[in-house]
């Protein structure tokens, strides 16, 4: 039997009933009488200077209530996750840096009127020469997006002496990899509604971080943070794409100006054009090993095209660099990662945060090395895998909860029975193969403080209210946090309510990103619960006539700790006797019910109210060497994919994926499985079909008919497995899982394709055209 009642239970998600009934309120579902509808006029040129905006014709249109331009932004007119470089509305005389930059805002009585009025606005733009190639953008002679130049950030990591170590390597592989720009593809486009009540501006929005949103709104509207209340509406997926500001500030401006409720909902195309994307990367990687396959050295340079604005770019590329070694110990490392501005669409955070790009490179390298040395892909990984006592490229010592080896072993064992049975060998033109890939992922923001807070209130009747800033974007954080509180108090899930992501009520919990909320907000809720529990335990101790540390919480009761099997037996006998006599099983030396204990707390004037906050133990990274402790803990995973390649059509079908993830502790196993299945599917798209095609700054794949995400027909059998290498600093040992699930998938598929047809791909996605071209190349060479 589990040592826990609620932890490790696949309880149903708290929001599931409202969602299956269609009652969950997404931002686009919100309606107020007299509400206005907003539209944004956007730039159609990728680089230029806005000379003027003529709104006179549009303003004269019936139904148009207000039109705002750059001069109407009272505050900083800038937003950004890391660098405040993105204008809310481009001002006259200022720069346009990408297609989609906002030039004017309209609020009208109907959406159709607002849309019509857009066409009547005339923007005079002086066109500037653009730059779209990140390598060219790094040259001094390139057109500059910013006065400081186009190289936004450089992250260096230096450990040992890589150049010297390569001299000692028996085998070295060196390869350039290219990964494509991709789209988050949440099914709900960005949406929000704003309303001014007295002096408080309330904004309901689809978001991953209400507290960040409120700060951006307040600074741009030049109002106090206390006057801005951002409430997360039900959010139809995020995956990193709802971290940036979309509708929030625009809605705030319009609601303040008109003093009417205003709604802004993006169309799918508007969403694709304006949301940040996954960074396309150029990765040059050189990896060397000795004859036994022990990795000795790595050199790596990474160029990430962050487009027109920084968004999470520098953080993303830092993560790419920090994770470039893969989950392996390498003594000598030299890594440089460049975040470069271009006039392309902005790239920012997307599930995996720069690590899927790195994984595609390092996992291909591992297979190439193994082949050269003559050992199996599994062996080379086992020989080099991080373990307790390993030191990472940033010089961080891993003390415990290093589950990469168990994931390798479990995945390999499971794959043996699931994949490539004798009868399953491909026929004729269809070739089958399997490929392995592993990953590691630091939980939380890289080398930065990123605390989360929570309040927990144990109410008079023994039910609990949790207040947390943590945005549940579908991953189930509300449920996870409720399970943690229910476990702490010995109550049922039905007895817990979670109010999340409302800046007017809940404390800041940071972003629902970086796979951080189970670990960080989970800790915050546990600490808050324990503060409230302390009062309860002290009161129960008095009632039971023992010291507080002698009292433990059971199911809706507090009892004297039983320290041996014998006393447990006696306790049970006594309770049985009491029950037989029609008495409650309580009393001095025994137990007291939660209800009675709470009544006693109140009679003594004590509230059972706790607050907690948790900040992971990290240090910043040295700017020259990248040395430091970027994360408090890491998740690990291994996936094996089985593919069938049609050598006539070039099509790749992924048949099965075995995916094993070390999550520390699965608080809700079904939700963890859901993350694994969803992540593998997103990874499948990344590997095979998904690509945001951009030509001269313009997105060509601007709808879901041309941007191809996996459908139910495309997904393989996914076999999820969970490894629990307990993290001592995590809530009940938990770490995180959201992003890791996608990270190894593309590399596993690419390695499987190599196994099937002997062709090595170094560029994503693996389209039929690319497969056929490579096969043709080989044929021509024969």
């Amino acid at each position: 039997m589990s040592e826990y009642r609620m932890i490790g239970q696949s309880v149903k998600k708290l929001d599931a009933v409202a969602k299956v009934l269609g009652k969950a309120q997404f931002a686009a579902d919100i309606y107020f009488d007299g509400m206005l509808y907003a539209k944004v006029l956007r730039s159609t040129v990728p680089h230029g200077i806005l000379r003027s905006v003529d709104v006179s014709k549009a303003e004269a249109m019936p139904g148009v209530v207000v039109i705002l331009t750059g001069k109407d932004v009272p505050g900083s007119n800038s937003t950004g996750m890391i660098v405040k470089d993105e204008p809310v509305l481009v001002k006259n005389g200022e720069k346009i840096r990408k297609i989609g930059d906002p030039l004017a805002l309209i609020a009208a009585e109907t959406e159709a009127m607002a849309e019509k009025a857009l066409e009547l606005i005339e923007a005079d733009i002086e066109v500037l020469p653009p730059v779209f190639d990140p390598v060219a953008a790094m040259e001094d002679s390139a057109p500059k997006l910013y006065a400081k130049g186009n190289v936004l950030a450089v992250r260096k990591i230096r450990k040992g002496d890589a150049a010297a170590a390569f001299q000692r390597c028996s085998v070295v592989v060196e390869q350039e990899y290219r990964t494509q720009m991709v789209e988050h593809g949440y099914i709900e486009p960005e949406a929000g509604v704003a309303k001014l009540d007295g002096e408080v501006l309330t904004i309901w929005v689809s978001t991953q971080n209400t507290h960040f949103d409120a700060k951006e709104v307040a600074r741009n509207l030049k109002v106090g943070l206390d006057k801005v209340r951002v409430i997360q509406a039900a959010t139809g997926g995020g995956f990193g794409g709802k971290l940036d500001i979309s509708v929030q500030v625009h809605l705030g401006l319009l609601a303040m100006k008109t003093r009417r409720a205003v709604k802004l909902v993006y169309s799918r195309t508007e969403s694709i054009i304006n949301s940040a994307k996954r960074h396309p990367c150029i990765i040059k990687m050189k990896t060397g090993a000795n004859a036994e396959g022990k990795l000795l050295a790595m050199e790596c340079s990474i160029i990430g095209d962050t487009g027109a604005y920084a968004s999470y770019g520098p953080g993303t590329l830092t993560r790419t660099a920090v994770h470039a070694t893969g989950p392996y110990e390498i003594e000598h490392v030299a890594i440089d990662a460049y975040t470069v501005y271009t006039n392309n669409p902005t790239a920012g955070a997307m599930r995996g945060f720069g690590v899927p790009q790195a994984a595609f490179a390092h996992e291909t390298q591992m297979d190439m090395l193994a082949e050269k040395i003559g050992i199996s892909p599994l062996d080379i990984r086992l020989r080099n895998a991080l373990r307790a006592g390993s030191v990472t490229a940033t010089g961080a010592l891993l003390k415990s909860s290093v589950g990469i080896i168990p994931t390798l072993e479990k995945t390999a064992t499971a794959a043996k029975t699931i994949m490539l049975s004798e009868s399953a060998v491909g026929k004729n033109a269809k070739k089958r193969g399997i490929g392995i890939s592993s990953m590691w992922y630091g939980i939380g923001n890289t080398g930065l403080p990123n605390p989360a807070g929570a309040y927990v209130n144990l109410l008079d009747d023994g039910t609990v209210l949790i207040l947390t800033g943590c945005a549940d974007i579908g991953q189930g954080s509300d449920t996870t946090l409720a399970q943690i509180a229910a476990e702490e108090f010995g109550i049922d899930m039905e007895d817990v309510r979670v109010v999340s992501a409302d800046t007017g009520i809940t404390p800041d919990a940071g972003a629902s990103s970086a796979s951080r909320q189970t670990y960080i907000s989970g800790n915050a809720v546990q600490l808050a619960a324990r503060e409230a529990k302390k009062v309860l335990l002290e009161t129960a101790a008095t009632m039971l006539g023992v010291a507080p540390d002698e009292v433990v919480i059971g199911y809706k009761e507090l009892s004297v700790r039983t320290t041996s099997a014998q006393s447990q037996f006696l306790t049970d006998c006594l309770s049985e006797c009491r029950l037989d006599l029609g008495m409650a099983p309580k009393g001095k030396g025994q137990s007291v019910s939660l209800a009675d204990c709470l009544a006693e707390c109140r009679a003594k004037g004590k509230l059972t109210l706790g607050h907690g906050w948790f900040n992971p133990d990290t240090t910043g990274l040295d700017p020259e060497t990248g040395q430091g402790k970027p994360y408090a803990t890491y998740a690990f995973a291994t996936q094996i994919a089985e593919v069938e390649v049609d050598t006539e059509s070039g099509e790749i079908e992924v048949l099965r994926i075995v995916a094993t993830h070390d999550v520390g502790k699965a608080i809700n196993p079904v939700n963890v499985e859901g993350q694994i299945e969803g992540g593998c599917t997103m990874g499948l798209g990344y590997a095979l079909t998904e690509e945001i095609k951009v030509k001269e700054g313009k997105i060509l794949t601007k709808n879901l008919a041309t941007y191809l995400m996996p459908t139910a027909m495309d997904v393989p059998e996914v076999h999820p497995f969970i490894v629990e290498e307990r993290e001592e600093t995590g809530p009940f040992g938990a770490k995180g899982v959201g992003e890791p699930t996608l990270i190894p998938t593309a590399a596993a598929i690419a390695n499987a394709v190599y196994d099937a047809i002997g062709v090595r791909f170094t560029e994503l996605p693996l389209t039929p055209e690319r497969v056929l071209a490579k096969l043709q190349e080989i044929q021509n060479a024969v």
Partner: protein
Amino acid sequence: MSKKAISFILNGQQTKVEVEPTLLLVDMLRNQLGLTGTKIGCGEGDCGACTVLLDGKSVNSCLILAVQTDGRELLTVEGLGTYDKLHPLQEAFIAAGAVQCGFCTPGMLLSAKSLLDKNPRPNRKQIARHISGNLCRCTGYAKIIDAIERVAHNQ
């Protein structure tokens, strides 16, 4: 443009409304009738979030005019179940862990219903094919297919 009076059965109730001839079915449902359970994910028939059942067949309500429902029978997620009595598919979606963000869920449920009404015992492949017009970005479809299969087995 003059409005047109139409009459149809909506979630079991005879309903009469006056609509603009160009009004899309999804906009009538969401804006005129306040039934916001039907979602808009793309407005172009690519994502399936707006799926409703018209005479029992699943359709993208973003590609159909409201006037086309005249004299016909319409089912939206609001007519599928209630807090007190969930539809078996709704129960199964919850139990299987098929709901993450929930935005595709109403459309997915209605697609599933139209399949089971026609073919009460579909296999996993048939289920996948039938819901392939409904995109889900969170779940990877596995638990959605599990849920539908569960209902099929219990029927």
